[in-house]
């Protein structure tokens, strides 16, 4: 089975506090696009997404587990694209607690305290990761790190 690993260079981007975007698709073929406040690094092959409000997204990934996420490295002038597969939802435990703390920090920084509320940490397997060129074409996708294994 081919296993994609997240490169270390993506970690500061996941932790930069900039909102990310997620696209899912229902079983009847309707895409859904939503802004998400956090993409949490679980390990080299998994991320967790914060489940706060977006019930349509939650319904979609339970019907069709595939998800697309784009995270923005504004300072680095690049965008990272991840193809994901939903695995499970956790409403307690160390991943949930760590994400809850980060959500609080993001909410405080953006004036959304009391509105951002983590309901669950949804765990996804990383199927692919790609760093897209910026508008000037100066960034490259060479940071793509995929390896065979597992």
């Amino acid at each position, binding site marked *: 089975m081919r296993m994609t690993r997240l490169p270390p260079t993506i970690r500061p981007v996941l932790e930069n506090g900039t*909102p990310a*975007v997620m*696209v*899912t*698709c229902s*079983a009847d*073929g*309707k*895409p*859904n*696009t*939503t*802004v998400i*406040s956090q993409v949490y690094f679980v390990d080299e092959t998994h991320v967790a997404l914060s489940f*706060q*409000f*977006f*019930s*349509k997204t939650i319904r979609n990934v339970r019907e*069709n587990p*595939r*998800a*697309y*996420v*784009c995270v*923005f490295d*504004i*300072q680095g*002038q690049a*965008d990272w*694209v991840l*193809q994901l597969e939903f695995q499970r939802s956790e409403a307690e435990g160390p991943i949930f607690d760590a994400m809850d703390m980060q959500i609080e920090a993001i909410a405080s*920084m*953006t*004036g*959304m305290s009391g*509105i*951002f509320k983590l309901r669950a940490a949804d765990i996804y397997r990383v199927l692919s990761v790609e760093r*897209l*060129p*910026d*508008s*000037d074409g100066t960034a490259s996708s060479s940071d793509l790190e995929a390896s065979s294994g597992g």
Partner: protein
Amino acid sequence: MIPGKIVRFLEQYANAAFGGTRDRDLVPYGHKVCGWRVGADQRTMTALVPEGFTSGLVESLQENGELAVVVEEFPSHETYQFKGRYLGHRAVQDDDVEVVDRIRKRFVRSFRSIFADAREDVLNAFVAKPSLAVEFEVLEVFLQTPGPGAGTRLVPPVES
């Protein structure tokens, strides 16, 4: 029909957007949107997509027509999602570039209110030049501003 209040939001305040499509296998894909225009009849929108995010876009739209575009004002997080059906695509025109230029100025001004030290050229680069215009008929509008009402369908209104 897109309500006038939301048209004003799109034309005067919103500063970031992203589109979603899917392929024939129901695999979702994303496409950065650097600009948007509302049709005169308020029933259509045009999404302006930069070079790096056009891969597979037209093929998916021609195959199934499904498009979902989320538009946000950062940092207030006022957000709406526009779901609709692909009508066509065309090359970018001069007035499209002017629309993106206005959005870029709004984005830089708003982002700087949170990240005061961010470099001007870096922020400007985030809103890239458009390379493709995609027109779609807006069939549904959803409120997606974070909070208890997130996900509420505004157009057509939900019947109670």
